[in-house]
């Protein structure tokens, strides 16, 4: 074992840290000199919210309820209701509360806040529907950035809703594939050493494909979701599009994992489509999940490599709260450095598993991203065989920097109306105003060396 402890001694750790630092500094320099994405969301609100937990709660609850409000008046009453719970109101809150006292004031306050929320939403959501999103997708492509479209929607509680979502997915595939045919050539986004990469890329959620996902009975949800996922795989195959199946919370983890591996093993889907799944590094047992995936890859021959998107995971608070309420051990790392280290560990294992997998490293953490690029290079890989993914609205500067460095970057682009988008939006906001968030660190002006430093495990390995 090397100084790092957990990594096999194949790549020289010192050389890796040097290369990584070099890459990180170059990426940082290549980031456009715009406002930090968090600040850009809403100048004052997010800054304030990051500092004041009560105000943060008030603003998020407000953003969350906007689509359910019936009038500007109703909107204003909610806003003042939430702000009224902040114990030490700042001057702007005082102004808002005063406006809430009159009918005209409430109308103005409602209109202003609705506009604010819409503006925030539009930074993260690229269009109301796939057609409306095509302009953004094409502009990204032209700038050397690929995309994966995610259809936002309400929770699926009925069979009709599941079917509606499946239909929207099928239509999205048609729409994007038709439009993408007219995009200019971007060789770096369209091919790696394993073969061609589809231009059209859609991410789907299993929880939206069935109302029957039950944590205690995964089989039932799997069966029902499979009936709607098969036609989508078929359609993606016919159209030559890539279908990516997202991961959600731990409650559905096993069902989703088994569903993907089962369906992709079916004879019909051996020849295609190009498909992918997600590995969540914040889960303590994610190394075992990767074992399962790699064992499967060794057993099942498919025409396309399986794309694995490595993420840290977006349901950390949910997992912690659920575990605490039930008295369970948390399924996620509770110390950020442990999660970051695991992310690097999994990055290496995934890169070492090529060509059976295509690796997509999805993070806004400059260290995690630079680590993937550096390890890939030092272990003899081509830049073109590593994909980097960012989120629309949060990873924009990193996206630009990666594209400028001729690295393959794909941006996750949520599509949907305001109602559907709100849960997504709130989750993104929560994630990125957390004090441990990389973007938050960056925004507070942490030194580059600090941002690129090797994470230190909470307990010795």
């Amino acid at each position, binding site marked *: 074992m090397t100084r790092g402890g957990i990594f096999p001694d194949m790549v020289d750790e010192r050389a890796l840290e040097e290369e990584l630092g070099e890459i990180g500094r170059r990426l940082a320099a290549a980031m456009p000199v715009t406002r930090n994405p968090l600040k850009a969301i809403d100048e004052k609100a997010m800054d304030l919210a990051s500092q004041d937990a009560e105000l943060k709660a008030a603003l998020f609850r407000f953003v969350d309820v906007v689509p359910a409000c019936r009038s500007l008046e109703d909107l204003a009453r909610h806003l003042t209701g939430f702000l009224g719970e902040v114990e030490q109101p700042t001057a702007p809150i005082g102004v808002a509360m005063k406006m809430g006292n009159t009918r005209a004031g409430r109308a103005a306050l409602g209109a202003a806040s609705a506009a604010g929320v819409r503006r925030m939403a539009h930074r993260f959501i690229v269009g109301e529907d796939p057609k409306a999103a095509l302009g953004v997708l094409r502009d990204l492509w032209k700038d050397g950035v690929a995309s994966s479209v995610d259809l936002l929607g309400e929770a699926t*509680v009925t069979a009709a809703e599941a079917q509606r979502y499946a239909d929207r997915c099928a239509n999205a595939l048609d729409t994007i594939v038709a439009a993408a045919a007219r995009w200019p050539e971007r060789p770096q986004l369209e091919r790696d050493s394993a073969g061609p990469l589809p231009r059209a890329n859609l991410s789907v959620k299993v929880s939206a494909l069935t109302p029957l996902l039950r944590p205690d009975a995964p089989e039932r949800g799997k069966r029902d979701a499979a009936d709607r996922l098969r036609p989508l795989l078929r359609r993606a195959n016919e159209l030559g599009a890539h279908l990516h199946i997202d991961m959600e919370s731990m*409650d559905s983890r*096993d069902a989703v994992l088994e569903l993907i591996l089962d369906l992709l093993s079916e004879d019909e889907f051996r020849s295609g489509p190009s498909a992918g799944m997600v590995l969540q590094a914040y889960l303590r047992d994610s190394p075992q999940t990767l074992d399962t995936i790699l064992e499967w890859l060794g057993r099942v021959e498919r025409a396309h490599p399986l794309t694995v998107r490595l993420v840290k995971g977006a349901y950390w608070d949910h997992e912690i709260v659920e575990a605490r309420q039930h008295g369970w051990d948390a399924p996620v790392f509770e110390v950020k450095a442990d999660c970051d280290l695991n992310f690097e560990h999994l990055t290496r294992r995934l890169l070492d598993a090529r060509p059976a997998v295509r690796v997509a490293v999805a993070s806004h953490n400059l260290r995690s991203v630079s680590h993937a690029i550096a390890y890939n290079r030092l272990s003899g890989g081509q830049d073109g065989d590593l994909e980097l993914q960012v989120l629309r609205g949060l990873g924009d500067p990193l996206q630009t920097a990666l594209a400028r460095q001729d690295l393959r970057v794909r941006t996750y682009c949520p599509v949907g109306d305001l109602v559907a988008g709100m849960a997504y939006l709130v989750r993104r906001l929560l994630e990125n105003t957390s004090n441990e968030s990389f973007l938050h660190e960056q925004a507070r002006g942490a030194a580059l060396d600090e941002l690129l430093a090797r994470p230190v495990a909470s307990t010795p390995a």
Partner: protein
Amino acid sequence: MAYVCPPGEDKRKPPPSIPPLNAAVDVRRDIVHAQMKPFTNEPILELRRGPIRAQLAGALAEHDKRPALHVPVWIGDDQREGADIVSTDPGRPERVVAEAAAAAKDEVDAALRAARPWTAPAEERAQVLVRAAQWLRERRLEVAALEVRECAKPWPEADADVCEAIDFLEYYARGAVDLAQGAPLLQVPGERNEMTYAPRGVVAVISPWNFPVAIALGMTAAALATGNAAILKPAEQSPGCAFVLTRALREAGVPPSALALLPGEGEVGAALVRDPRVHTIAFTGSNKVGLDIVRAAAEVPPGQKHLKRVIAEMGGKNCVIVDSDADLDEVVPALVKSAFLYAGQKCSAAARVLCHEAIHDALVERLAGAIEVLEVGQADDLEIDVPPVIEEDAQQRVARYAAEAQSGGRIAARARSVPDGSGWFAAPTLAADLPTDSPVLSDEIFGPLLAVERVRDVDDACDRVDASPFALTGGLFARNPDTVDRVIERSPVGNLYVNRAITGAMVARQPFGGNRLSGTGTKAGGPGYLLQFVEPHVVTENTMRHGLVV
């Protein structure tokens, strides 16, 4: 756990020249507390993990290999078996789960003659209850499997019931040690004031079948923790579960004279309630029986030198208010859970949804779709959503009210997948557009039937809740904090849940119990519950003698 100390009371310290009253006792409590970690809820099984689910089938196979349980009338060291009462699997009524002897009149008398308060110190009683908790922990799946069979409790619910039973034991054990400290009183020079609590005597525990281990054990444990003798008359539908919990207590060390088990039908309970040797009646069950008990307990027959105390947890007609700003993504699953888990056979279950007219139709549409896909089936099958109801009477009652809903209003949805076969299955049903005087909106149905009503606004909903004689649980889905405050202010219910499902109260987190005709307002699993089982004694001693404080 401060049982009786009013806020701020402990700030009034006695003058320094007088030693603190409870010094000696405090040392003892510290010893016991050192052995008892602070209370935490027993974790339910993490059934989302495959290896944990895999254990269930084995436990059930073990259970099925054994012959039917023989439940005795158990008084002191005597056990008399019999087959007067037969409990069967509600999902397959031909399967016999337990055969029980029914206590005869002379056995009720014998149990009362044998009953002796449990005079061991509180710390010792607490240790025994903690041992009983451990007994259950070690047989957790075995006990849950029995509940699956005897009461058609689906696995997650059965497991939660055993956990709650463990929680009651652990919680009341700690509470009893605290209560033995007495209550702090104001002390002035020259007198010593002391308030202590003594057991009331004999507690008749009359328990229901729907939480067949937890509720019976909770009431019994509270009686025993405080030093009373307990005589348990369990529901005739669940004698097997009652036998197991009695074994847990006895094998943990509860003296034979302090705990008797009297299986039987209603007349056993009635005899206990009327007997002058009974001091306290702890009852959970229907409203009708509860009111009978309250009436009977008020009588003071010749020779009875005390007033009986009744602790009653009765029915409900629980309402969930849904305001126009509610998130239906959250509301629909929470309503399905509240109304249909365990086929709606929980006193806390949702029976009425009072929905703001602006989103009424959208809610009905989504809720209907969610109910249609509910799967009804055997309780041992993790893939089902709704098990059978407890017995044929219950099945017929649900059908009667569903017909009533159909004629008075309309059936907006019914689960599609309901097995044929011999089990007492009842389809989860959503009723809508009912007239305000429909019995579907006022009677406790205790089955998988949910009614939704259109209201003008939250105040209209609060008026309807206020018009009900019941006040057990309630729910509110609203996101404006001012609305939430207003509904909290107006709500009469014992347990109000905001923006979540209204079932699943946890010991120490949601002390549980209803107001109005739903109960006596006592809160099981909460501070103060044990006070119902004791009587306070205050002693004031003059410590001034010839001008000296002695």
